[in-house]
């Protein structure tokens, strides 16, 4: 029971043979070697495993790798280009929006989606958008500030 999938991850095409039951998060970390997306709750609550699939922020612990066959996946590793941070990454840096940093890759991928869809979000809209991402350091205020700062700069 294996299947070959071909997908594009951070702009690079690759093909692998996987069991249908392999979750996208396990595929990204263990097969593709991308350990930026994190595994925490594994019950689709915490958002640490958030990546974009065909431009949509999704929780990669709740999607099978075979569902991503033929699709475009963007992980935190795909954001910085030529050694230059993505504006959202830079805003997280500037606003001290991380403490332990565990939730940060998921937070940034969700934050990017919020601003892509709504370039000037209100604080309420930012908080509503981040509901699916948990920060156990509870550093939400600085995370919200970072999303605001990134939106203001864009």
């Amino acid at each position, binding site marked *: 029971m294996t299947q070959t999938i071909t997908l594009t991850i951070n702009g690079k095409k690759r093909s692998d043979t996987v*069991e249908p*039951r392999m*979750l996208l998060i396990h595929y990204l970390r263990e097969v593709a070697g991308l350990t930026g997306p994190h595994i925490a709750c594994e019950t689709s*609550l915490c*958002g640490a495993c*958030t990546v974009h699939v065909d431009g949509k922020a999704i929780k990669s612990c709740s999607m*099978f790798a*075979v*569902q991503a066959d033929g699709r475009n996946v963007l992980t935190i590793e795909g954001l910085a280009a030529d050694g230059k941070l993505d504006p959202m990454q830079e805003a997280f840096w500037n606003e001290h929006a991380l403490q332990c940093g565990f939730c940060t890759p998921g937070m940034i991928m969700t934050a990017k989606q919020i601003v892509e869809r709504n370039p000037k979000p209100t604080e309420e809209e930012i908080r509503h958008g981040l509901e699916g991402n948990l920060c156990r350091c509870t550093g939400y205020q600085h995370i919200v500030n970072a999303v605001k700062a990134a939106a203001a700069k864009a």
Partner: protein
Amino acid sequence: MIAENFEYSAPTKLDDALRQLSNEDTKVLAGGMSLIPLMKLRLAAPGQLVDIGRIADLNFIHEEGGTLRIGATTTHYQVENSPLVRSRCPLLAEAASHIGDLQVRNMGTIGGSIAHADPAADYPASLLALEARVALVTAKSKREIPIADFFVDTFTTALEPGEIVHAVVVPVEDQSTGTSYQKVLQPASGFAIVGVAARIRKSGGKIAMARVGVTGLSGKPFRATQVEKALEGAAGSPSEIQKAAALVSDGVDANSDLHASADYRKHLARVYTMRALAIALSRTA
């Protein structure tokens, strides 16, 4: 957490998908927001998954003969942001915006949500208040049934073996109708501890029509017809609303869990029915 192994197919044509559903051991995968967590916990272990997420013919929202037809794989994000749903059936867009979180709304689908029939799901309250219908399809036949007949019990629907949800059919709302969906959410999962959808139309200063759908309170979502009857013909004063809302939990065998005892749930249902009715009333023309 790793699911049991299974065979996977992702047909792009509806007919192909329906043909593959003849086996008892086969499950339909739509957005996967309910099924995949169940499979990871091994509460479900289907031998074969038919992924309907690549069937373009199941993803649509269109207006037809005074109704909106919403294809089974339409995501909550699509419902929430569809100009057509927002203008023709704002209650459904409002309900969709409250489901789960951004990532769940990107993946989760209206057909998947109702087919799973979680007693704490958001959509059912609104669909009951809207008196929606569900279009079902098998390899050989088609039928359309009222949403109230679709929800049979907890996690149990009227779907027959080999049958899938094709579309949800909701009436285009009269512009003078006021609607609202109010919920108490479980903060971790976003599921409704109690959710109430209200729909009110006034005529000559009196409430001519009231519809109330309730989710989360009991084993299956239901229409609070006693509340509706109490409101019809009333002027809609705060005391009338309060009196009517108090009837919502009468005779209900309420759920009880870690998040809310049965008595507390009933209390929440009364308060949130009052709020949903008051807001819906303020939105009537």
